[in-house]
Structure formats: structure tokens, C-alpha cells
């Protein structure tokens, strides 16, 4: 991949935009289309594009597999943790009404947190799959 100058320059231009768009989809999922799952996949595809252009070894240096393993579990833990926090605050499991000062604020916070958990898990699992599928 040493000679594809056009690809390298264009990728350098659009990868930050892809990552930014993923964050937008993640945190704007309450108001527009999107959510954790879509954001995670877009985030992962940004990294995968980087790996396709600059080689997977460079990506392994940026995001080690060990880090992804921890991250994928962390996302799930964030989801379950949000549910259990609702349980501890006196509601049901995954009941967000008790998280905030009033039910609507609680719902906002809860949905934001679990979507973040979904996004982290999906992004890291997608990258993890790409790591083990791609030839070293």
C-alpha cells in the first residue's frame, strides 16, 4: 500500500469525519435517526478503513486487542450497571425513571448511558472480529 497516494490522502481526510459522524450518531440518537448500534458500527468502520489503507499492523499498534477485549466487556457492564443502579435507587431493573430528578430527565440519562454501552460493545466487538478475521 505504499503507492496509493490518492487513497492515503483521501482516507486521512475522511477518517476523522467518519469518527466524528459516529459520535454524532451516538449522542444525537435521541433526536435523529441512529443510536448506539449504528454509531458503534460506523466507529468501527472508520478504524477498519484505516487498517485497509495503512495496514493492520499499524491499527494493532493504535488499538491493541487486549484493550478491545476489556472495552467490549465494559460496554455490557455499563448497560447492566445502569439497570442495577435503577434497582438500587428503588425502581425495577432497567427502570430509568428513578435516575434523574424527574422521570423524563431520568429516562434521558438512562437511554444515553445504555446507548453508550451498546456503542462501546458493538464498536469493540466489530473491530475484534476484523482483527481475528484479517490475515496477520
Amino acid at each position, binding site marked *: 500500500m505504499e503507492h496509493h497516494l490518492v487513497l492515503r490522502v483521501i482516507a486521512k481526510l475522511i477518517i476523522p469525519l467518519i469518527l466524528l459522524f459516529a459520535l454524532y*450518531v451516538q449522542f444525537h*440518537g*435521541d*433526536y*435523529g*435517526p*441512529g*443510536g448506539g*448500534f*449504528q454509531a458503534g*458500527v*460506523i466507529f*468501527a*468502520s472508520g478504524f*477498519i478503513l484505516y487498517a485497509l489503507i495503512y495496514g493492520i499492523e499499524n491499527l494493532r499498534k493504535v488499538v491493541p*486487542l487486549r484493550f478491545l*477485549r476489556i472495552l*467490549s*466487556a465494559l*460496554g*455490557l457492564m455499563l*448497560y*447492566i450497571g445502569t*439497570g442495577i443502579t435503577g434497582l438500587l435507587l428503588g425502581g425495577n431493573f*432497567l427502570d*430509568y425513571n428513578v435516575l434523574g430528578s424527574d*422521570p*423524563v430527565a431520568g*429516562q*434521558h440519562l*438512562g*437511554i444515553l448511558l*445504555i*446507548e453508550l*454501552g*451498546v456503542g462501546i*460493545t*458493538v464498536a*469493540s*466487538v*466489530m473491530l*475484534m*472480529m*476484523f482483527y*481475528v*478475521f*484479517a*490475515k*496477520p
Partner: protein
Amino acid sequence: MTGIFSLVSACLFVTMGAVDVAFTEAAVGAGIATLLFLCTLALTSSEESPAVRHSWVSFFVVFLTGTILIYGTIDIPEFGDGTAPVHQHIAERYIETSQVEIGIPNMVTAVLASYRGYDTLGEVTVIFTAGIGVLILLGRGRREKLVKHDSDQVA
């Protein structure tokens, strides 16, 4: 081929107004799934390895799971059935009360994350489990090969 199909169906979802689904279809189906297919083609050889011994226990487990799943589908209302519970009151309740109860403009997110929180938790768990499964199946063999490779080099 599957990539093109996914892209076309993503466009179809957009025209039908299901933007959230179209998003997923375009990113997963057209992007990552195609890439994984290509990686698999590069990873495997064109010849089939000799058949390994089949385990009757695993066949029994798979058969049992399939039977239970098919048995579960018997209770599902018929396709396009107007008297199904979904069309009777659930959808209307979501449409009417989600703005008051949750206060989020995107109703899809509200339904997925709040009303169907358990479902989404299950989905995330499935994705996580799939990741673990792929790691177990493919990751360990690679590492052993690497270790062997290193010891060869040392020798």
C-alpha cells in the same frame, strides 16, 4: 453481491421511512459483512480439509435447540394478522405516550432503549457472546501458530 443487495435494501428502507434500520443495513450489511466475507475467502484455502469426527452430543444439542425454537414460533400470530396484539394496543400506546413519558423525539430510540430495554440488553449480550466465540475459534489458533513460529525461529 451481498454488499450490493444490502445497499439496495438500505435504500429501500430509506424510501419506506425506516431510517434507523437503513443506517444499520448500510453500515453492517454493505460494509463490514462484505469485508468479513472477503477476509474469510483470503483466510481459507480452496480445498476442503478431511472431515473430522462428528459428535453426537453436539448434534443432539443443536437439534434440541432448533426444535425448541420452532416450537416457539407456533405461538407467533400469522403474518399480516390484524388482530395480533401489536396492532391492537401496543403500537398505539407507544405512539401516544412515548413523548410524555420519555420526552425523546426519536420514537425508535425510545422504544428500543426504554420500553424494550431487556430486548436490547439481550442483543448486546448476543453481540458480546459472538465476539467471544470468534475470539475462541480463531484467536487462539493464531496465537499458537505464532508461538510455534517464534520457537521455530529461536531453534
